[in-house]
């Protein structure tokens, strides 16, 4: 089994316009997804604190998020297990977030097995 990470990006203001009922319905879909057996880990990131740090020529620069657009805000991530990339994509294809923002899926590189002895 390999591990894959799902990066959820969205514009948090989309949620603010929802009615309580819609918000609950959406949330329930996320909850349901989170309970799938192949979800290993998941967490939510705060949408409003984001700083990017970079050191160039010994000088540290700190800027507000990398985001050119508000819909690029990284809102959370999941780690899932699948036998290969195709399966991982298939398993993730029904994530409700895809209707809200974007879901980026990447394989977490495994340490190559070194020849022993």
């Amino acid at each position, binding site marked *: 089994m390999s591990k894959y990470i799902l990066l959820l990006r969205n514009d948090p203001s989309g949620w603010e316009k929802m009615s*309580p009922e819609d*918000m*609950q319905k*959406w*949330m*329930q879909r996320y*909850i349901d997804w989170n309970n799938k057996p192949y979800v290993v880990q998941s*967490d*939510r990131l705060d949408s409003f604190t984001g700083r990017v740090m970079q050191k160039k020529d010994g000088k540290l620069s700190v800027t507000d998020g990398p985001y050119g657009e508000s819909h690029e805000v990284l809102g959370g991530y999941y780690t899932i297990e699948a036998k290969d990339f195709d399966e991982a994509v298939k398993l993730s294809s029904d994530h409700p977030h895809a209707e809200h923002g974007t879901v980026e899926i990447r394989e977490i590189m495994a340490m190559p097995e070194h020849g022993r002895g």
Partner: protein
Amino acid sequence: MTEEVQGEPGGPVLLEHLFRREAVRIVAWLARQLGSQHLQLAEDAAQEAMLRAAQLWPFRGVPERPEGWLFRVAYNHAISALRKGVRFDDKAEALIAALESRGEQTDALDLDETLRDDELCMIFMCCHPEISQDARVALSLKLVAGFGVGEIARVFLVDEATVAQRLVRAKKVIREKRLPLAMPRKAALSVRLDSVLEAIYLMFSGGYAASSGEILIRQDVCMEALRLGRLLAASWLGAPRVDALVALMALQAARLPARTDAAGDLVLLEEQNRGLWDTGLIGLGFSYFGRAIVGDAVSVWHVQAAIAATHAMAQSAQSTDWKAILGHYDQLAEMTGSPVVAMNRAVAVMQVHGAAAGLRALEPLAGHAAFRGYYLLPAVRGRMLMELGRMAEAEDAFAEALECECSEPERRFLREQLERARILAAIGA
């Protein structure tokens, strides 16, 4: 109504409408503590709590007591919002102190009891005579029923901007006139209660009006109006006319499952499969009706409930006691002088005395301002004309109805009627 749960088996599930219910309770509680001039702050705090839940619960799981969690987050948000305003508002300190002392007590208080009171105060504020009538319903739907602007717009077939504008205007009145979040004084109670009952029924009929494909949300609106009615009936404000309104709504809501067919098309009362009527709601309706008829006072709600009860009692459309219904409509027309009641009465006249008499009863209504752009009057006339075999005139009447604004199912129904009149005219029936 059963409390249904959502979600997949095994996963955490939330009570149906939890957010809607809690949003209302939080706003009502906070606004009552802080005063109606801080209504916006209360709404923001409730919104913040739900946003936070929507962000965290999917990842961290649903907390043990979701209601308490939401309440606490909203409460904290309100306190910190007030803190930020301390520099500009010299009363903020006092409000924070008051809120903190009340907040400490909430764990010990019978919260349900307090919240019911808060909700009643909120209903009365939303239906305050200072607020325009169309805004009363929108405001009640927002603050007492927990619907969003988009949902309200979909139910009343107006655009969101119109609803938003009504709400803004109503809230301005609340702020500027300092409408209190309190029960009305004894002297004004009766009039104020009538205004509340009217708004609740307008809410109900908005949901009941057979339009658009949004059946679910419409049923929710009906059920919410019914809940509010029962809330009033169970409180110290309970009065026979409140029971009568609840009876009316329950008996009408019982027919909801039979009013549209699988394709979403309208089914007229006489063609409805009565087996689909909700027997639980009918039972509820009759029990409230029984309570309503103690005492001598007869309100418009009593008479309308009596009409709904007569329909509910009929085993079939054919065995409907139209004479009794006509008698009720006579009384209602006298009480209200409403042209819409007069139109419904004409239908009862047709059932009792025939289509020609029905048509005569409709005549005085022609050209009445209340029916401008309203499809129902020409549609009813078309039906009576068809009954009389005057197909060409019936066709014209249905064409006229189709020119009015109406929902897709209504439009399909009218087109069907028009086609029938045309075909029958062609074969000389």
